[in-house]
């Protein structure tokens, strides 16, 4: 199979970046990593990239393929060039580039260390010196987060991090939930307090790209949601982010819609809100926000209230993601999007 692709190369000394075209012959079932290996072995020994396990376990080889982050070793190259496309391979985003496809991971590790990613059981081991007895279902709360391989795909895709580089981000927060949600952890509240501050839980913009791109199904955004719910459950509700979230719920429950003008006041408080009046006026004028009066109200309140009832009915286990997905799916009638037409068969 003939392959053509472009790789974003960068010179560590000058910092200059250029696209380099490679053409090579590969076996049909080759992955993008096989392709990079072959380029390095046969065409260009200077191409730099990380790799080790070649089976999606070690997390070394995340790259951006036409802007989407994926593990090179899990990406069949035939898919990339289907239909005569010329894919562009670039280093992952939101981390400084060292050389070619290699990025500096240290900023990501720093944030991971900041959440103190290790279990802190303070009580004594059980009397018989054996394992802590834990009902299996309770460990389900952190099962997905424990699958993280630190590949950085979520960090690469995170919109909030690109705007606010200090945001802890999906990787560190998923790791944080791994411990907050562990039934053996005994420092839950202090952890949540730390995570609720600036650049923490509430800085996530809920774009869900981390969930979408995670190669291991960790679903970092879900972990962030669980952290938020748990922070509420232990009474950490005074942070702006928490107040913002709380008002979303209140607003939806009472009028079925989000009332933006009130949202600002409820989140920022009266004093700060006053300073935002010029901005608000501009928004009203441009039609970007509805006027505060008359109250913005949905014609039908029932669906919003029903949704809230379902979620609330799941209790804490729901908030921890143990039952949420399944129950909600059971309770909601899904409207399926029409299936996309199958792509035309390609000759590879």
């Amino acid at each position, binding site marked *: 199979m003939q392959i053509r692709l472009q790789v974003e190369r960068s010179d560590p000394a000058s910092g200059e970046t250029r696209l380099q075209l490679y053409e090579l012959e590969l076996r049909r079932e080759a992955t993008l990593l096989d392709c990079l290996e072959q380029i390095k072995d046969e065409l260009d020994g200077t191409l730099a990239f990380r790799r*080790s*396990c070649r089976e999606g376990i070690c997390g070394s080889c995340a790259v951006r393929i036409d802007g989407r982050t994926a593990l090179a070793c899990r990406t069949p190259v035939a898919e990339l060039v289907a239909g005569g496309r010329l894919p562009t391979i670039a280093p992952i985003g939101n981390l400084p580039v060292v050389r070619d496809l290699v990025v500096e991971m240290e900023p990501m590790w720093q944030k991971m260390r900041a959440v103190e990613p290790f*279990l802190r059981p303070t009580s004594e081991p059980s009397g018989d010196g054996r394992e802590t007895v834990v009902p299996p279902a309770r460990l389900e709360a952190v099962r997905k987060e424990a699958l993280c391989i630190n590949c950085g795909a979520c960090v690469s895709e995170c919109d909030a991090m690109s705007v606010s580089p200090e945001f802890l981000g999906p990787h560190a927060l998923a790791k944080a939930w791994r411990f907050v949600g562990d039934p053996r952890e005994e420092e839950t509240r202090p952890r949540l307090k730390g995570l609720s501050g600036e650049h923490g839980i509430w800085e996530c913009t809920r774009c869900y790209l981390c969930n979408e791109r995670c190669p291991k199904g960790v679903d970092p955004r879900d972990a962030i949601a669980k952290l938020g719910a748990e922070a509420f459950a232990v009474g950490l509700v005074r942070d702006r982010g928490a107040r913002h979230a709380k008002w979303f719920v209140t607003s939806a429950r009472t009028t079925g819609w989000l009332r933006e003008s009130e949202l600002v006041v409820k989140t920022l408080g009266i004093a700060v809100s006053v300073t935002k009046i010029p901005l608000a006026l501009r928004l009203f004028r441009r039609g970007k926000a509805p006027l505060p009066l008359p109250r913005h109200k949905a014609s039908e309140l029932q669906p919003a209230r029903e949704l809230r009832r379902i979620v609330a009915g799941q209790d804490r286990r729901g908030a921890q993601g143990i039952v949420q997905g399944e129950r909600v799916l059971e309770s909601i009638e899904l409207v399926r999007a029409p299936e996309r037409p199958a792509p035309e068969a390609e000759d590879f």
Partner: protein
Amino acid sequence: MGSLRGAIVYGLEDVESSHDVLVIGAGCAGMRAAIEAYDAGADVALVSKLHPTRSHSGAARGGINAALGNAGADSPEQHAADTVKGSDYLGDQDAIELFCAEAPADIYQLERWGALFDRDAEGRLAQRAFGGAGTPRTVHAADVTGHVLLQVMYEQLLARGIYVYEEYFAWRLVLGDEGCEGVLAWDLARGGVRALAAKAVILATGGSGRVYHGSTNAHACTADGMAMALRAGLPLEDLEFVQFHPTTLFPSGLLVTEAVRGEGGYLLNSSGARFMRHYAPEAMELASRDVVSRGEQTEIDEGRSVEGSLLLDMRHFGREKMLERFHGTRDLALTYAGIDPLERPIPVRPGAHYHMGGVATNVDGRTEIANVFAAGEVACVSLHGANRLGGNSLMETIVFGRRAGRAAAEEALGKSGGAELGPSARSGGEREIVKLLERREGERPRSIRDELGASMHENFGVFREEGKMRRQLELLEDLRERYQQVLVEDKGEVWNSDLTQALELGFQLDLAVCMVSAGLERRESRGAHSRPEDYPERDDQNFLKHSLVRWSNDWLDLSWKPVTITRWQPRRRAY
């Protein structure tokens, strides 16, 4: 080239470091060793060519063995008896007994550190049955046990603030009057040779699977520590014993879980027959790994394969079972072989999986050089003897990683003064690197590596035989000759993996020579070393002993040492 030499030699004076204990390799064994050395009061750091959580320990799936007795009566004695038998009586029984006795407490500690092991209905650690074990003994975390342990080790490392020289490629032990004085490493991220001094060094670099073309091992498993020890004059033990896994996916070599056969998958030859009925009429596809691998290899050798592969058929599982229980396997086949196992059988063949042999150590990881230690797959205690039982290797990383860490800390703390490395140590390493980088013409590593991998399969694979092994030694001589002119195309300093991959190839070539030499001298069939043509039987009279290979004066010296037997006299190994 002047500027290059200048940068390497003069630019980096400020990064010299010294520690009490330096651990090379940051997989489960290395990290466990570092944690223990730290807890024993030593100043410890790790050196790893990968970020710790990228280590190959993370690929271990099935589980970790300890006689907890949570799923049926069990005892360390029973665990030991199973391990002795599994080793085809080549394991040292004192080491095995100690290992089995200490394993349970280590499991409880891992649990307390946060390891997310699966639970039984009562909330205790669940244990599953594994090959060669008389009772369910394997503690597990779904099919990602190695991953879970690797994370826990790293978490405990962070909890202690232990420093890791990340993406430092260690390639030479520095020897002096006081034994080992430290290591030389190439700093991948910045470029340049770093000299790291230590009062004690622990090798924990893992296995050597990449010596073979078809291997379940990661690209990083290139025998680094074994070759470094060899070049430092240390003996390597039982190198002829390599475990082959019967179901590795062609062409990638990735492991297809044993559960596929456990759940009733068929192995077919080119005429669609379930050939295992000739090799294990009772157990069929469920026979032990070595038996199935040998059956497959016989089919391949006798021309009943499909282009060198056998076919693993799961079509009769049906859609529901496939999607529910073997989603991962189907995904693997789709991604890496382009085949949907619902529609077609998948091509598999035996692939190199685990190296039982390694750097000869005692139960404290100690080698012949008083301050050099080894633990994990790089070492040979000998726990696995001629054949490893599934689930024992992860446990080995923990038990013997811990013991090596403790012993190395005590060794280092017993020495007065700081660790030091003379300036000549680094300049010697720099000369080697500069010479490699300055070469403008030569052969790229690829062809040498490919020939090494393919020929090792052909001549030192599942079956061995005098003539083939002799041919392989000649071929290796030729490859080593060609390696003298290996060409590193990348002349840069920052992230020059072209350089480190060339150095890795040098490790692999050295190790391959030792493996085949030891295999040639072992004139019997035992465990993973199978010589059906010339020596089909086990020979306890002459070969109930460990092989030891060492370099001395540019010559391979092969000797033997006795097996330690405590309670279990050798008997025929049958299941």
